């Protein structure tokens, strides 16, 4: 179990700055996701922690020890690559045992730990197969076993589920989470999929253009994004401009909306109001207090849930609810919005 810290870490490739002064603290045994769009620098950050890239500035600390200059071989970290990076000329068991054999572990110990690890990833029956003879999920498990057998102090995963189909991805998410909790290993994984990040991680670091935009627990990141970019990346659909009339009242294009007061967003401020689609109640009759009137103009049925697009005049608001009922298009409705679920963002 290792605590990982990044202190003002910076990475420059020629004239291009890939990472700009990132500060990050990952607690021992924590599972952290580095989330961001392609090219934002999340993989570069991971590679610096692994020792595959040397930071241009700042320091990387493992348990308060500076490892920035330490060669990759001496860091005792593990990495699962997006395309698995299995050795194609080695069988499953040789792949898994590779890390121990290059470290000079005695043969008897290698054999014991190999059995144990193949059992953990349930690949005993495939031990003599080559990577080309395995499915994507099996290759992924070999890659994980090959890493875990060396008992790394930090486990890193670079888009570990990107090459798997939807069903397998769900299974592998649970598998990774179970494994991480079982071994209690500090884990950092890179993803551009916010759902994956929220499902797996204890905390999520959102990176845009080499800058750390927000580092928070998944629920806070989802409900209380730090800025418009984070809100947009986290899939917020209803963001409307507003003027604050009072600390708890925002005047929007769809009418006045009660909000939970937030420091720094007082009367007279121009703000953006974020309404999470699933936090809005779609009412057929006008609620006793307030309610934003509108008309259903589109309905997207997803089986378990249904999305309604409601025309409220100046804006169209998306409402998501469980598909226990289906409201017809053109039905006049009212939107009931809980002030505690409205989030204010700086314009």
């Amino acid at each position: 179990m290792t605590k990982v810290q990044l202190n003002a870490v910076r990475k420059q490739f020629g004239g291009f700055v890939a990472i700009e002064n990132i500060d990050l603290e990952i607690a021992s045994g924590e599972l952290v996701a580095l989330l961001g769009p392609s090219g934002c620098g999340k993989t570069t950050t991971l590679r610096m922690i692994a020792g595959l890239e040397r930071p241009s500035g700042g320091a990387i600390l493992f348990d308060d020890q500076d490892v920035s200059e330490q060669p990759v071989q001496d860091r005792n970290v593990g990495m699962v690559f997006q395309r698995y990076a299995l050795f194609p000329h080695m069988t499953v068991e040789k792949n898994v045992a590779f890390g121990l054999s290059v470290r000079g572990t005695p043969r008897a110990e290698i054999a014991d730990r190999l059995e144990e690890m193949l059992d953990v990833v349930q690949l005993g029956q495939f031990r003599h197969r080559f990577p080309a003879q395995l499915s994507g999920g099996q290759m992924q498990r070999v890659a994980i076993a090959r890493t875990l057998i060396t008992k790394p102090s930090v486990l890193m995963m670079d888009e570990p589920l990107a090459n798997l189909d939807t069903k397998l991805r769900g299974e592998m998410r649970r598998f990774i989470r179970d494994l991480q909790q079982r071994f209690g290993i500090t884990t950092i994984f890179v993803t551009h999929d916010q759902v994956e990040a929220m499902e797996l991680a204890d905390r999520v670091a959102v990176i845009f253009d080499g800058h750390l935009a927000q580092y928070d627990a998944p629920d806070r990141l989802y409900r209380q994004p730090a800025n418009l970019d984070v809100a947009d990346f986290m899939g917020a659909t209803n963001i409307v401009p507003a003027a604050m009339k009072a600390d708890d009242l925002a005047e929007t294009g769809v009418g006045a909306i009660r909000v939970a007061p937030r420091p720094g967003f007082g009367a007279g401020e121009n703000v953006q109001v974020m309404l999470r689609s699933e936090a809005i109640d779609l009412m057929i009759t006008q609620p006793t207090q307030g309610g934003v009137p509108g008309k259903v103009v589109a309905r997207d049925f997803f089986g378990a849930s249904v999305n309604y697009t409601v025309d409220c005049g100046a804006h169209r608001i998306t409402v998501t609810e469980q598909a226990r009922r289906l409201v017809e298009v053109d039905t006049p409705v009212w939107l009931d919005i809980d002030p505690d679920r409205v989030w204010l963002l700086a314009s």
Partner: protein
Amino acid sequence: MSVSSSIASRSGAQERMTARERRTRFWQMVQLVPIMAILVLLFGGALVLAILQSLGFAPWFGVNTFPDFSYFGALWGSSTFWVSLGLTLYYATVSTVIALILGILLALALVKTFPSKTFYKYLYKLPLMIPYTVGIALAVLMLSNGGMLSRLAAFFGLIDDPAQFPQILKTHYGWGIIAVYVWKQTPFITLAVYAVLLGIGRETEEAAAILGANRRTIFFRVTLPQILPGVVSSTLICFAFNVGAFEAPFILGGGFPDTLPVVAWRYFNDADYTLQLQGMATVVSIGLVAGVILFGYLAAYRRYERRMGRN
């Protein structure tokens, strides 16, 4: 529809399928005709003719003692043949191995990022565009006793006279021949290995490094097995060329006993036309030796591939 009529229609469909398959197969054969014509008529025809001549069939020279193994007997019974064979294989093997080592090192360097990489990527290919004869001329200009190196050594006072420069060319050590082959073939092997390295990417090497492997282990246990297809194909071509090459050993070699291609050339160039049959026996011997070695090499590689699960 009755059972019998349904079976009849099914067997009719099968017949139609067979006819379609036959047409497809015929069309495939037609498409193969151009390459087969070249292989069978030019290469195969020449090979058959060479074997026939080496066995005494050359009525156009007034010789027809077919089947006559005396040409092979005379050749293989001579001790100089075996020395010539040894020299041929020595030059071919040493230059291929040196070019392979340099080619792999160069290819490994080229996959890394460094300043002016694009320039070096063009520069290393330069010898590929220059003919062997120019390389031989360069070797004479640089390495002979009156060449650049000997004059530079004399200029800097390392030797009193360029003639005192150690003999590099025209010895049976064949340094000149090896130098020319290595100069020409290193870029070729680099090109083949570099292409394979680009294909496999750097992830497996990085994975091995993270798992604790040092550079040497990474090369021998991770990189080399993956670049073997490029290594085998390029060294196969280089070795086959070196065994049969004539100009470099002829100009830069140490004289009698010559390499086998030079021996063959001397027979062909003799005023006595009947010696051409002896020359053909030499050529067929070169083909046999090269064929056996290359077949063994490929068979060993194939066995390794099968052991690695590649069928």
